[in-house]
């Protein structure tokens, strides 16, 4: 692999303007190599989705990038015009959303929505594009693709719709696929099929994946490296195996301890789950120092006043905590 595909550095996103301006995401840095799978994990409201939207230039007011840089293949995405960004989006960087029913156009047959990609980005004729749409639908293992292209989204099941979304996203062989909770709305057995499909297709095409999820199991299954976000900060960024073996940030440790583990009751009897006390702070009231400080059992005076910097943990991993380990 030759270098980073996507480099996000010191990304800062604010919400609102003037007096009601608040910081939503701050100091987010990560990079994804070609063909690599990177996960962003965190709870709702931690800023993982807006980080992804910022990456492909889809942030809308009241959200706005207020600092940092996003480089894709060395090119600064923040300097691109809306038109240049539109050329890139869907073509080199594609996105899959959580709820395929709201992401697909209900008034257009799915085949046409796939074909649109070839027309817009590859200059194909509609006739040619619709033929390619059947192939694209076949590649995501939809049975009878030549019939299914005529279906409207409401005529398909949730799993089938998400396959259509994947077909659209991968139509132009993008370098980067951003998947925002792609299986959260699906049943667990369908989720397993969709994840397997994504993995196979991206592996075969060398597509890098930025996977956003609140589900640590999905991240462990799909990703090589992972960033744990909490209240708009990157708490810890590690190789997946390192994160689960030796979580360094107290939040990560708490999160892993709070999960009921399959098989653990059988082996050790039922133990009380470890709780993380308190609640996630609201965006208007983020603490000045470490944002996890009010809930952290290791917090000391310095945590309340100063934001912890990155501590290198080796193997390309870091943690932002004064009392990690």
């Amino acid at each position, binding site marked *: 692999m030759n270098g980073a595909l996507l480099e996000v550095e010191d990304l800062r996103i604010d919400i609102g303007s003037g007096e009601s301006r608040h910081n939503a995401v701050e100091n987010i840095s990560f990079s994804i190599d070609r063909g690599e799978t990177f996960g962003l994990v965190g*709870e*709702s409201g931690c800023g993982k989705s807006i980080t992804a939207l910022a990456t492909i230039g889809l942030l809308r007011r009241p959200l706005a990038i207020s600092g940092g840089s996003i480089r894709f293949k060395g090119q600064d995405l923040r300097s691109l015009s809306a038109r240049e960004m539109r050329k890139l989006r869907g073509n080199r960087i594609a996105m899959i959303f959580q709820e395929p029913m709201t992401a697909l156009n209900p008034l257009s047959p799915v085949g046409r929505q796939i074909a649109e990609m070839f027309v817009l980005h590859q200059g194909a004729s509609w006739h040619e594009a619709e033929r390619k749409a059947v192939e694209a639908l076949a590649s995501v293992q939809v049975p009878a693709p030549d019939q299914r292209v005529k279906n409207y989204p409401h005529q398909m099941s949730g799993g089938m719709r998400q396959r259509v979304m994947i077909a659209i996203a991968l139509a132009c062989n993008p370098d980067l696929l951003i998947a925002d909770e792609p299986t959260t709305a699906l*049943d*667990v*057995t*369908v*989720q*397993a099929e969709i*994840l397997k499909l994504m993995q196979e297709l991206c592996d075969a095409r060398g597509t890098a994946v930025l996977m956003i999820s*609140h*589900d*640590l*199991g*999905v*991240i*462990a*299954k799909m990703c090589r490296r992972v960033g744990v976000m909490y209240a708009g900060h990157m708490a810890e960024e590690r190789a*997946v*195996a390192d994160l*689960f*073996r030796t979580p360094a940030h107290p*939040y990560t440790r*708490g*999160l*892993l301890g*709070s*999960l*009921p*583990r*399959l*098989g653990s*009751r*059988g082996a050790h009897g*039922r133990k*009380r*789950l*470890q*709780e*993380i006390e308190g*609640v*996630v702070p609201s965006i208007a009231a983020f603490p000045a120092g470490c944002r996890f400080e009010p809930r952290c059992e290791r917090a000391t005076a310095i945590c309340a006043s100063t934001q912890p910097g990155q501590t290198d943990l080796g193997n390309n991993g870091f943690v932002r905590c004064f009392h990690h380990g």
Partner: protein
Amino acid sequence: MDSAPEPLLRVEDLSVHFPVQGGVFNRRRKMLRAVNNVSLTLNKGECLSIVGESGCGKSTLALSIVGLQAPTSGSIHFEGRPITGKAQPSRIERARMAQIVFQDPYASLNPRQTVFTSLAAPLRLHGIGNGEVESRVEEMMRLVGLKPDQAKRFPHEFSGGQRQRIGIARALILNPKVVVLDEPVSALDVSIRAQIINLLLELKERLRLSYIMISHDLSVVEHMSDRVAVMYFGQIVETGRWESIFANPMHPYTRRLLGAIPDPFAELSGKKLIDEAQAPRPPSGYDYHPQQFDRQDVYSAPQPSQLVAIAGDHCVRLAPVA
């Protein structure tokens, strides 16, 4: 459990069918078979979990148990007394038998009522005087880990986890014996789930409650349940104590469900929860029912099949081989 199980709630041969209209002028009528001949027993002090994918009928079954959905046929008995059909008790009486905690604490609380008003309403309906209402609400708030003076607030002033605590308080305020938990933690943030799971288990011990939990999260099911029933297309395909369901899943659907869970620790250790090469064969003379997935039709009656005991009370749905 130490003592012999004491049946509290018995569901017998329960079916719920919904008429679905279609065709020209809605003249064609079909029956959607949401629940097909389900029989279940909930013992005192037990947590019975019903698992299955969306649309398998688990929530319809739960609604029937709390009296929010009339069954098409079959019966439900509470402490030996029928609570469906002609002899069914009034809603007021029924409210003290079974209550429900809903999945989404944002949608299930009235945004225009203070928490106090929401919690006091069932007590008032049951003719409890003002003084007692206040002390009961206060007691309930404490029990679920909230401060009594927070009852003056409106639902939007609470976080998701706190709202679910209020939902639990409302379900428990009439001292019901059975509580139906419909996906109690799946709408909550990961770091909040443990708090609610611990709370539910504590309350179960302290108030001697019996739970029927509807869930699709099998790690939560394993942690909380005493017995598990796996539902597929309106039928129970496998049921038994949690140990035997998780250690020896038999039915192909149960195995598929267990095999589909992305468990972070299993992923990394490379251990498979389910090894398909070692799928247990059905007993001779039988085959699993259904044998094929994705071919089910909710409109036609299922093929004849029966729940056959494999070991103890571990039962699997099988169809005799022709």
